[in-house]
């Protein structure tokens, strides 16, 4: 591939990110892609090394990587672009610079692409290690809801207290791109569910290399579904108290409940079992009442369908990006449209199942990859704020592995035990 070079420095502003159309060009001619990078202000461009950029063709799935980012020629098409580089900070610490843009159309004679980069600093807090959103199936094949869970992990070298950590679910779906107004995606995450770990700040320590299991319902689910598993040892559960017999949740008195700040539904809350949402954790530095009063977010958008358009309005809450500790975008290949959080929070996505209503997704979770296991035996999980890179999709859930319970509606039992769904545990 012939390559072409141009690198614009900080301050070069271009208004468009898509590329100009020129119908006179035959579509199969390679197109020059000129990348304009905007680095964070405190980064000295000369300290940036080991640059690389990856183009993933949405249609073919083909990936093209190059370290010569100044001279890029790509065939026309729709691409997801990821940029990575090393940076030496003024403090002398080494970090990573990342940037990404999804849904870039390469066409015409020249494609101008503006990329904002951000600095990646390893999270000094709990991170999401696993999300089991698909649930299990009854022996008849019917979906069972209630055994979904999220596992957090202390990836640091010191004790982290879970107190005050807020679990959230995104309002927007990764499968449906909407132009919402006002658009806050670069500054905030719009959320529809907020549950917070109770405590005074030092009540719920998580040691380095330890997990924190947060379950929907902390009971032994085998009593309701023989194909499910035991969650009565969960550290927390989210319990939705209701007076109505029509949608009751089950409260295990032995498993502490998360503090329910806000939920969009009066029924019991379950994780989106096709995985169309982003899940995350945040540390909200203000008190609950202030947050509930001040962080409401209402937006308008137009839902466009093949049959026409629906003007819509929706209510949500918002969490400023600075408060977000970790976020994981989930989607499915057949319907993925965008990431519902800013790229600096997550520039990839992970999945269980590839098509909508995929029946193979049940009994599977997404699990964060092992980066390395240090000599002391402590597992270090991969955290580059790119869920595509950081997660193993469609894994046997860790709880099912540990308990050796069913991995299919037919009742076949799990036999392997792994660190991350892939790496076998010795």
């Amino acid at each position, binding site marked *: 591939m012939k390559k072409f070079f141009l690198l614009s420095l900080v301050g070069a502003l271009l208004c468009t990110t898509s590329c100009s159309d020129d119908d006179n060009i035959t579509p199969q001619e390679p197109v020059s892609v000129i990348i304009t990078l905007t680095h964070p202000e405190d980064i000295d461009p000369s300290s940036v090394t080991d640059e690389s950029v990856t183009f993933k063709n949405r249609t073919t799935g083909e990936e093209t990587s190059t370290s010569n980012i100044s001279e890029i020629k790509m065939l026309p098409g729709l691409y997801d672009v990821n940029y990575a580089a090393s940076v030496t900070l003024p403090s002398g610490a080494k970090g990573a610079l990342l940037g990404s843009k999804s849904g870039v159309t390469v066409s015409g004679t020249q494609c101008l692409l503006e990329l904002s980069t951000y600095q990646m600093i390893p999270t000094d807090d709990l991170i999401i290690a696993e999300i089991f959103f698909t649930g299990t199936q*009854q*022996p*008849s*094949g*019917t*979906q*069972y*809801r*209630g055994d979904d869970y999220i596992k957090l992990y202390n990836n640091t070298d010191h004790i982290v207290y879970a107190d005050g950590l807020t679990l959230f679910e995104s309002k927007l779906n990764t499968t449906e791109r909407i132009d919402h107004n006002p658009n806050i995606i670069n500054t905030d995450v719009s959320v529809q569910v907020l549950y917070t770990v109770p405590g005074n700040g030092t009540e719920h320590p998580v040691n380095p290399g330890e997990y924190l299991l947060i379950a929907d*319902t902390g*009971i*032994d*689910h085998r*009593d*309701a*579904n023989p194909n499910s598993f035991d969650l009565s040892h969960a550290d927390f559960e989210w319990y*939705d*108290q*209701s*007076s*109505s*017999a*029509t*949608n*009751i*949740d*089950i*409260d*295990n*008195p032995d498993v502490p409940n998360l*503090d*329910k*700040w*806000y*939920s*969009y*539904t*009066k029924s*019991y809350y*379950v994780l989106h079992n096709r995985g169309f949402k982003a899940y995350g954790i945040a540390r909200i530095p203000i008190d*609950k*009442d202030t947050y*509930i*009063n001040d962080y409401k977010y*209402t937006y*308008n*958008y*137009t839902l*466009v*369908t093949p*049959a*026409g*358009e*629906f*003007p*819509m*309005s*929706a*209510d949500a809450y918002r969490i400023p990006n600075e408060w977000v500790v970790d976020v994981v975008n989930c989607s499915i290949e057949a319907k993925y449209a965008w990431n519902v959080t800013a790229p600096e929070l997550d520039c990839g996505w992970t999945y269980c199942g590839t098509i909508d209503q995929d*029946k193979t997704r049940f009994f599977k979770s997404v699990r964060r990859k092992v980066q390395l296991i240090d000599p002391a035996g402590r597992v270090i999980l991969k955290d580059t704020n790119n869920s595509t890179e950081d997660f193993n999709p469609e894994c046997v859930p860790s709880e099912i592995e540990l308990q050796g319970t069913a991995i299919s509606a037919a009742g076949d039992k799990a036999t392997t035990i792994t660190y991350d769904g892939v790496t076998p545990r010795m």
Partner: protein
Amino acid sequence: MSLSHRFILFSTLFTTLLQANAVIKINGVTTDASTGEPMQYASVKIITEGKATITDGEGRWHLEAASLPCRISVTYIGYQSVDTAITDNRAQQISIALKPTSLTTGDVVITAQEKGGMHGEIKIDRNAMAHLQPTSFADLLELLPGNMAKDPEMGHANSITLRETGTVTALGAKTELSDDYTTGAMGTAFIVDGALLSTDSDMQSITGINSSDASAKRNSVNKGIDMRSISTDNIESVEVQRGIPSAEYGNITSGIVKINRRKGSTPFTARFKADRFSKLFSAGKGFNIGQSDKMINIDAGYLDSKIDPRDSHENFQRVNASIRANLPLNCNYGLWKWHTSIDYNATIDAAKADPDLNENKIDIFKSSKHNFGWQGGFNFIAGTQSWLRTLDFDASIRYGLNRLERHKLVAPARAAAVPVTSEPGVHDGKYLMREYIADYIVDGKPLDIFMKLKSTAYFPGSVISHSPMAGAEYTMAKNLGDGQIFELLRPLSASWPTRPRKYSDIPAMQLLSFFIQDNITLTAGGHSFDFQAGIRGLMLPAIDKKYYLNGRLYLDPRLNLVWNLPVCNPGGKELRITLGAGYGMTTRMPSLDQLYPADTYIDLIQLNRYAPSGESRVNIRTFIENSCNYDLRPARNHKYEFRAAINWGGNRLSVSYFNEQMSSAFRYETSFAPYTFTRYDDSPSSLPLESLPSRQITILEGVSRPTNGSNIKKSGVEFQFTTQRWKTIGTSVIINGAWLHTEYSGSQGVWRKVNDVVNNIAVSDMYVGLYDDDNSRTNEQFNTNITFDTQIPRFGLIVTTSLQCLWWLSTKRQYVSGIPTEYIDTSGTISTFTSDDAIHPIKHFLIKHYNSELFDTFTVPLSMYLNVKITKKVGRWLSLSAFVNRLIDYQPDYSVNSGITIRRTSTPYFGMEATFTI
């Protein structure tokens, strides 16, 4: 004598007997041109003077004219009218022979005809139906102005909509009538051979079922007649009255569908139809008993229909059979005609989930309705000398064996709690943990009784003639079924809101009506006026005192005027102009379901202690709320309309403007009230209930009750234009169409819960707001159907090409602010929602946000379809028909606000049939 000659049109009974001076007597006899037999009850009229009479048993008639020459017209249904000039009265007897339309090849009427009567009547006869090739009665509606050809939809109840657009979605798609706006369908009476088909006792629905369930789509409760159930094969003619009906008809809002079934000697006819969705077979025969004029008709039919031809799991079947007898009896005073019939009609809806495709392996729905009917009555037609003209009595009893069965695998998500008793108060419920099979049965045995007595008289005058009418009607609706049957521990879903209920405990509903009306005919200077003024009263005599309706009589005034202008002859062709106007009220009483809805059960969880190792306990306090709305009123519709009809040399144009306002249509609405219960703390899980820490909690819960909360406003213009047949090409053109403007809105605010849960408290437990109605839309459409009707008698060929255009269809959602006007709190107090409440930490959640573009008008532009129908006679016995709907379509792309282009497609629908007539 052919039996159909006995058919009588009372409305044409006009005579003017008294003449001041110089009377010229004209005598005549009327015969059937095909058989030469005399024709009784043909209507004879001196057009120039407006005098009229009917023929006697020997076909004889006599009239007295003021001057000569004059013009006389002789009309008889099913025959071509004869218009003749009389220049002198020296002939002893004027002979007039009428040709039956079925034999007058080249002039078969294959569309609906505007009759130009005073009630907005439109008539569809057998020839039109044969050419249309309908599967059920629903297909006939294509012929009414404002309607277009539609594929049969056998997967849901087919309700009738007269002069309204029906429910339109935000994107301009027409769907089934919204449950909030079915009163128009419920208020359209179907009258078969003089007896009402009542739907008031139909309760075949599952209370509280999800609207996407197979049973909900096929639910016809409070939606009037399900037209799928009516076969068209034994119908001789259908008359749809859309205007101001005669006072004779009541308990309606929108209109009347009068079905006259075949009677008299008819050849053995067998029909086979096949199309994409269904197969239909029917056969019928009518004969005289010996040589007498007693007639018996027998027919039967079977329809097997699939909702999707590729899916054998969902289908609809219909079986119908009927035997009818008509027994005329002459006596000294006039003619008695007895008629009686026994009918059987069954529909079977079935749907089951494909076990290979569906996650819920077992999901079966079956609903069968077997209806048995007897009807009988007599008509007495007095001799011409008596002031009493007719006396009619009709009665019918219909009894149904209806059974709706639901058999389903239910998998509770985690554990679900269910109550175990139907009693109010505190009790322990049960947890449902594992999958189970639910069986739900709705057993209905509707019993409907109908009786009607009517008499007409005639008082002639020199200028003004009176033709008064009076009568009374009684109907009773009762359901003897075992009702909704299921096990409390095996409900249809884990969140089940109702309890078993026996329908036979519900009282019978009785409706008593009377009517009185005068028809005044006035002739002056070539003008003639028909003025009809009537009043109908209706009441529910046996209803409990608790109801507002108890002891109340509702009166419906009905006024109609027709003005026939003098006939003139511009361009050498006769021009007749008729103008008309009408005003009336129509009142529809609630149905059995609306008067006696099922009780609402409010089950509140007091203790939810799930402890598989210890003692699990779910404690429930149950409140039973009567869902009856004792203040329920009838739905009343105010109608007025103007009409004009012009007939010039056989080219006919009729136009009518109508306006209907009904602000008290029925719908179910939820109202809220506080309920107090004890919530026990479940943490110390081994203690008995009494020693658990607890607190009293008050929350808001809702009860859904029938109300008069819907507003249906209909206005529009309907027109039909029919040209004379151009002899050279054997073609006539029929253009009909309508501009319809329909507003569906709520006449009261609606209480709506919000779903937000803040700080572990559901907002709707504390506050519920009263909002503008959120199911309100104004729809408008304009359509025309241009039909080219080509008939080539030599080849026995009829070809119609219909160009059906929906010029536009627009829909606009009524503005809703999203800010409640009032709210209720847990003390039961209703307060105004103020600007302070809008910033209250909890109450501000009551504000709903709407995108302002939501209230813009959405317009679907032109769509045009070409439909072709062909009927060909093959040999003596066989007639073949075929149709293709949407053979060609033109639906231009259009773009919407966001810039996307909407591309529309359609697929043709075709079928064919063979009819043997032996």
